[in-house]
């Protein structure tokens, strides 16, 4: 039982902060890069759209672990660019998340009905104004549910950074259970892994709850009432 408490403590103190930090950094990076790419893909000229689509396909089609090793091991051994493990992980997973997020935002932008843009333009708004005041606010709200998904995926992907030595939750856990299997016996490995699974699960649940709250707060009144209005 002691082991359980000790392990939990170690996981939370040594591994969890990095995991959280990495998750937030990745989401942020994905957001900052994803939105512009999405806009370019919807409103940009043909070659730009083609480029964005290419970017999306590439970074979604390559497994995360390949990207991570490419940016860490590949860069350092071939080109002598040795990035700190956290940075390589951030770069690789960040580019990936931005590809996914750009797809989310693109979908949201495209679901805002065509008529909204027409109405805005008919009043004399420039394209930029229409995007800023009419399309964007609506697209943002529409993107929250799929984005909640992205949060969950990114959180889980951070575990892969352990492959290059980033000292996040999974790495810390493997250290713990490797030692435990010597000192306490191999049967404890399962227990420790279940513990870390619980920690991830709690974080996912908290994140989903938080985002669910955000969705409620920004919800446009009347949308859920729509069915009752036609009297």
């Amino acid at each position, binding site marked *: 039982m002691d082991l359980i408490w000790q392990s939990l403590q170690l996981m939370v103190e040594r591994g969890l902060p990095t995991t959280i930090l990495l998750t937030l950094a990745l989401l942020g990076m994905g957001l900052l890069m994803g939105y512009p790419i999405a806009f370019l893909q919807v409103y940009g000229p043909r070659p730009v759209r083609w480029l964005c689509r290419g970017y999306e396909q590439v970074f979604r089609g390559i497994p995360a672990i390949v990207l991570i090793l490419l940016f860490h091991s590949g860069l350092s051994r071939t080109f002598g660019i040795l990035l700190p493990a956290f940075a390589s992980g951030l770069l690789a997973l960040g580019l990936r998340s931005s590809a996914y997020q750009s797809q989310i935002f693109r979908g949201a932008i495209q679901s805002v*009905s065509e*008529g*909204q843009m027409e*109405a805005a*333009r*008919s*009043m*004399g708004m420039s394209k930029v104004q229409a995007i800023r005041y*009419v399309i964007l606010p609506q697209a943002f709200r529409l993107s929250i549910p799929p984005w909640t998904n992205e949060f969950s995926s990114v959180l889980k992907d951070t575990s892969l950074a352990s492959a290059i030595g980033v000292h996040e939750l999974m790495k810390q856990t493997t250290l713990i259970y490797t030692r435990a299997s010597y000192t306490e016996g191999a049967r404890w490995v399962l227990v420790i892994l279940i513990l870390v699974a619980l920690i991830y699960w709690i974080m996912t649940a908290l994140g989903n709850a938080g985002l669910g709250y955000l969705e409620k707060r920004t919800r446009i009144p009347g949308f859920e009432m729509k069915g009752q209005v*036609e009297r």
Partner: protein
Amino acid sequence: MDTREHHALGDIVLRVENVHKTYGENHVLRGVSLIMRRGETKVIIGPSGTGKSTLLRCINQLTTPDEGKVWLGDCEMTSPKEDINCARARIGFVFQSFNLFTHLTALSNVRIAPMKVSKMPKAEATQLAMMELERVGLADKADAYPAELSGGQQQRVSIARALAMSPQLILFDEPTSALDPELIGEVLTVMIDLARDGMTMLAVTHEMGFARVVADEIIFMEGGSILEQGPPDELVRNPKHVRTGEFLNKITELYGE
């Protein structure tokens, strides 16, 4: 009974010259020309697909005509040098599907263009918006979101939104076609009041009752061109073309007088 007021013959607000538009194989607009003077109300009727909506959209350049020119007053809208946003601000457009901004309240919908396009300060824009909402009878719904309003109310808000920019001309693209029958009346009432107040209006609609009450002229379009045009009474009693008569009979059958 003819209850139209006679407007003094005003200057030319809109001139459409020989506009053509083709979509793929479909030559939707075949050399359409028309003139609107200040204070006039004209109604365009015709079978579906004859390019009526396309014509309206070519006027405010939501669709670019392939050939032909459009002038708003002195300003040639079809010229690439013209700042299209500036010109559009002077034309109001009312859509069949309302197209109110779903994330904004009725009040915000009406005041957003004065604020962002005409750069009016918020307080002034709010006052203006409330005035227009009152004009269409919806001042009490200022804080409602579009989804909370009935179709007729939404359309009236969209008219208020168009009015807020003090347009020289308002275009109506089948404003009542998407409404339940009992809601059509409230929108038509607003439109009739507007016409009587001297607004220059060009409307595509089937509502012959409306046309006969306020229209200075009815334009019958078929196959992408204007077949016939004239004052409502003349057109109804003495159509020059067979098709005009046929079409008018069909819609008065359906919609009643």
